[in-house]
């Protein structure tokens, strides 16, 4: 190709459908004969269900199915630790937990039916504090923890307690480390639960079919995970389940795994096979779907006078809420990054997943890293303050570099990416070495802050994905794969890769948008920023396979050896005779000789890729090789704060990420901006609030606020650093989650610089600032 397509800001392939309203989401789908589901939710955080009377609801004309926990108690759903039922069974464990589900002709009838249901509860004392939950006399949220199925050897529940998993890291000798240290600094950090706030709420439709089959349409990130977990949970063979994912209105981890799919499946079955649709209301999205976990961290850091950190002891108490299925994995994955992007020789880390009676935890963009790095990057600031050292210098001194070993013992190389470069880039963007600007008024103060980050995909060691390329009659190609593009732009990047590999215009590459487990090759899940890495490699593999076939078929009519055949600009020729060529369109479905003889047949490129060389981590020491690739990053922030009201403005911000290679620059910038603003939300305004009984107080947009156009930092500079990843497609590594990580500490560090206060709990509200100023 004359023009290099890799790195170009090619127009998003889904843009036209989206700007015209043509793109259909599950929200928009209606099936013939479709029923509407509604759920009755727990008004209590923790209670025994004494009785449920659904008789009146069942008699209501237009009601087709009513399900309670009693009807579905034999089914358990889960991926890592199978602790979830489809509806509450015997007990409710959080405010908002689905208790009864109804399917009816109309939403109005379903709603009316819910009102006819009588439930008697016996309230129990809820477990709301993660610290207290780990104490001996705490009420137990899951008495049957010992019986729950889980990934053996990977997760370690402690039956009889509220601890669903205990992950450990032991590196070096912690006692020696502290003995060597000149200073020991101890602190506690906290951040509350937050919601993903995808603009499309969770929605699923199921149609139960004869022969114990089911077809599902869902706003899901991972069609194959839905199929697998539904199959395992309901005892259905994989081949009897078809999962379709059309356009998805945002996910951010909240639509990973499985959600309402089993419920609509069982409702459809109970309704004799009529399709059933459930659309979570915004309130349900806040009340009844999983969230990012809260985290209480304790840090003890040993540092030498010169700033060299020699020992770190860490305890993470993850408030995983009422279920820990996904939470256990966050605890492990983020635990493995628990010291931040620094090289520390002696580490003792304990990461505990703790049950409470709150909304339960799941993946959220960054998979535990925003939470963990909130603590590490605040702790660095405490250390710098103690030593009287420039926070930039302290970081520079301790960062991971080529030759360093991570806390799980992995050695880093030159090509692993550079956190140092990211740090320098953002420091430069904010003129870190120069004096701060004066505040704009006497009652205001200015401050600057830095924070670093790193994250590797959190995934099983053997994650793989496939890709399939098929020619169309006109010589264009269709790419199918089951990675879901719910807004990240991966499909556009993959189209660019195909275009480059096959030497054809990008608009001749059709990435089949709708995902379907029946027709597409397998992918584990669309999570962890591994999409472009794994699927990109699979797509390259598919291109290679297709090219090989093209050359083999063309070798006949061109009368040449495959070694000398070139593919360029949709033409196939022998390298020294470019004018004597076969067009792709004349070979895609097989080549036909002038006399009518056909050869080759329809060409199909098959590609696959699996994570290579990753290992499980040791139970006692956490040592192992869990990281596919590390993406490093840094933020620098300047704030101006009103000292009387605590109100503040992020006046300037820069963020840099070493993403290996930007395949599509515009989309990468989009990821950085969008991610940064989500991190900004976590930093400045977001967080669930509960009353003393565990009732959610923030379950509408009226009281759960996210950033708007008027809130975002006005002056934001995204910076791309490119240290190619050896095994990444074109050197690329993931960058979807990273932009939001460490935004909160960058801002808190700037506030500390401005006012001299140390705020160690989120969100950083003006009130929080005033509170600290008053107690200073």
């Amino acid at each position: 190709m004359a023009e290099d397509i890799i790195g170009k800001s090619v127009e998003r392939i889904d843009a036209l459908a989206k700007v015209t309203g043509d793109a259909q989401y599950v929200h928009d789908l209606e099936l013939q004969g479709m029923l509407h589901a509604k759920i009755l939710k727990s008004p209590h955080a923790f209670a025994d269900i004494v009785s449920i009377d659904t008789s009146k609801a069942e008699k209501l004309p237009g009601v087709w199915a009513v399900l309670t926990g009693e009807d579905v108690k034999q089914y358990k759903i889960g991926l890592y630790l199978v602790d979830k039922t489809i509806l509450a069974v015997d007990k409710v464990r959080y405010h908002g937990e689905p208790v009864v589900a109804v399917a009816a002709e109309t939403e109005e009838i379903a709603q009316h039916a819910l009102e006819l249901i009588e439930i008697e509860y016996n309230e129990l004392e809820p477990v709301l504090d993660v610290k207290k939950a780990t104490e001996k006399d705490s009420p137990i949220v899951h008495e049957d923890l010992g019986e729950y199925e889980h990934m053996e050897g990977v997760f370690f529940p402690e039956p009889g307690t509220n601890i669903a998993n205990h992950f450990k890291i032991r590196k070096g000798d912690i006692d020696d480390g502290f003995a060597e240290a000149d200073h020991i600094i101890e602190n506690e950090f906290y951040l509350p639960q937050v919601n993903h706030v995808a603009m499309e709420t969770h929605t699923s439709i199921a149609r139960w079919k004869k022969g114990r089959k089911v077809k599902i349409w869902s706003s899901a990130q991972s069609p194959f995970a839905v199929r697998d977990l539904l199959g395992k949970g309901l005892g259905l063979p994989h081949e009897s389940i078809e999962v379709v994912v059309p356009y998805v209105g945002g996910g951010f981890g909240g639509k990973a795994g499985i959600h309402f799919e089993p419920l609509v499946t069982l409702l459809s079955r109970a309704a004799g096979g009529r399709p059933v649709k459930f659309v979570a209301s915004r309130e349900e999205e806040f009340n009844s779907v999983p969230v990012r976990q809260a985290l209480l961290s304790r840090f003890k850091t040993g540092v030498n006078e010169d700033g060299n950190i020699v020992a770190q002891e860490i305890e993470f108490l993850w408030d995983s809420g009422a279920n820990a299925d996904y939470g256990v994995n966050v605890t492990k994955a983020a635990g493995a990054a628990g010291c931040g992007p620094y090289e520390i020789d002696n580490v003792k880390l304990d990461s505990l997943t703790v049950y409470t009676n709150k909304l339960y935890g799941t993946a959220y963009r960054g998979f535990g890293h925003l939470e963990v790095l909130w603590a590490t990057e605040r702790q660095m600031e405490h250390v710098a303050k103690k030593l009287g050292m420039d926070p930039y210098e302290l970081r520079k001194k301790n960062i991971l570099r080529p030759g360093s070993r991570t806390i799980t013992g992995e050695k880093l190389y030159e090509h692993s990416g550079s956190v140092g470069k990211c740090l320098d880039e953002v420091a430069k963007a904010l003129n870190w070495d120069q004096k701060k600007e004066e505040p704009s008024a006497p009652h205001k103060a200015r401050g600057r802050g830095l924070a670093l980050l790193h994250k590797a995909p959190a995934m099983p060691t053997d994650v793989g994905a496939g890709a399939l390329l098929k020619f169309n009659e006109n010589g264009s190609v269709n790419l199918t794969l089951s990675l879901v593009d719910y807004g990240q732009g991966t499909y556009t990047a993959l189209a660019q890769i195909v275009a480059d590999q096959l030497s054809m215009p990008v608009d001749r590459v059709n990435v089949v948008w709708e995902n379907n487990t029946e027709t597409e090759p397998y992918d584990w899940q669309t999570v962890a920023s591994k999409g472009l890495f794994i699927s990109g490699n699979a797509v390259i593999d598919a291109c290679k396979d297709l090219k090989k076939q093209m050359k083999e078929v063309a070798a006949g009519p061109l009368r040449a050896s495959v070694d000398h055949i070139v593919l360029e600009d949709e033409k196939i020729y022998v390298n020294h005779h470019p004018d004597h060529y076969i067009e792709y369109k004349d070979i895609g479905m097989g080549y036909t000789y002038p006399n009518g003889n056909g050869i080759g047949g329809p060409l199909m490129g098959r590609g696959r890729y699996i994570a290579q060389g990753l290992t499980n981590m040791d139970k006692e020491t956490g040592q192992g090789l869990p990281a596919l690739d590390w993406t490093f990053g840094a933020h620098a922030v300047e704030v101006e704060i009103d000292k009387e009201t605590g109100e503040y403005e992020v006046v300037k911000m820069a963020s840099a990420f070493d993403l290996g290679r930007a395949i599509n620059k515009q989309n990468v910038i989009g990821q950085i901006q969008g991610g940064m603003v989500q991190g900004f939300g976590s930093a400045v305004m977001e967080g669930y609030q509960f009353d003393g009984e565990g009732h959610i107080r923030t379950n509408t947009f009226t009281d759960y606020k996210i950033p708007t156009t008027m809130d975002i930092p006005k002056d934001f500079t995204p910076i791309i650093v490119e240290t190619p990843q050896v095994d990444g497609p074109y050197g690329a590594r993931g960058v979807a989650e990273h932009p939001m990580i460490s935004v909160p500490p960058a801002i808190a560090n700037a506030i500390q610089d401005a006012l001299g206060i140390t705020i160690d709990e989120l969100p950083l509200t003006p009130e929080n600032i005033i509170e600290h100023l008053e107690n200073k």
Partner: protein
Amino acid sequence: MIRDLAYHKPDTIKETIELLGSCEGKTSLLAGGTDLVVNMRKDAYHPDNVIDVKGIEELKRLEYSEDEGLYLGGLVTCNQLIFSEMINEKYPVLVEACKKHSSHQIRNRATVVGNICGASPGADLAPALLVLGTEVDVVGPNGERLIPLVDFFTGVKRNALEEGEIVRGLKVASPIKGYKANYSKKARIKGPDLSAVGVAGLASREEGVVRFAFGAVAPTPVYLDVSDLFAEKDYKAAKEELMEKVDASISPITDVRSTEKYRRRIAGVYTRRLLEELWGEGDK
């Protein structure tokens, strides 16, 4: 989900009052609906009858005269005020308050009268209208009456209207000579949000007038006319007493939006800043 209801759309106030008298069950007037429809959707409130007043021409009045001041009819929306040259010139504080109310789309529907009738403690238009001096023009089965806005708010989401009454509009006093006024709002975010504290101030050195009003810091908006204070005392003493008075007059609570303590602080800081901005430093 909204429950079954009967929708009516009368053309006149008379018809409306008749409907209010004759409809069975709970009946609500509907203006912009940005308060009512939200409550209906959340099932917080479900009227059997909804009377849409948007067909009543009389309620669309928006007029100003030197002598009478401003007449702001029941259907005038927040955005109408924001984009009205007359309001920008004569009552810029109303523009400020409207700009701090909700989002552009909501302001296209939300009426000023609906904001007042909803009687939410944090209603953003209340403080500005209070400092300007406003009367509520009410029509009912027994005739018409004018209720001073201060007396209109009787409790959280409760107003002084009686069965069958409708607000025709608001009468806002003619601008005081040489006055300046402004509205400060503290919310959780900079984008659209309900107010955690709202403070309106008005001052005229020429006429010796100093007034403040507060939203979201008590069950109903709080109004303070401290003109006498500034007439009698020197600036410093008056200012100090004003600050004490503010703290004594408000009774904020702690809720999802803010804490009592912080609300008190903000009410104080905003009052002081508004005083400095509108009155300036020093005695009259």
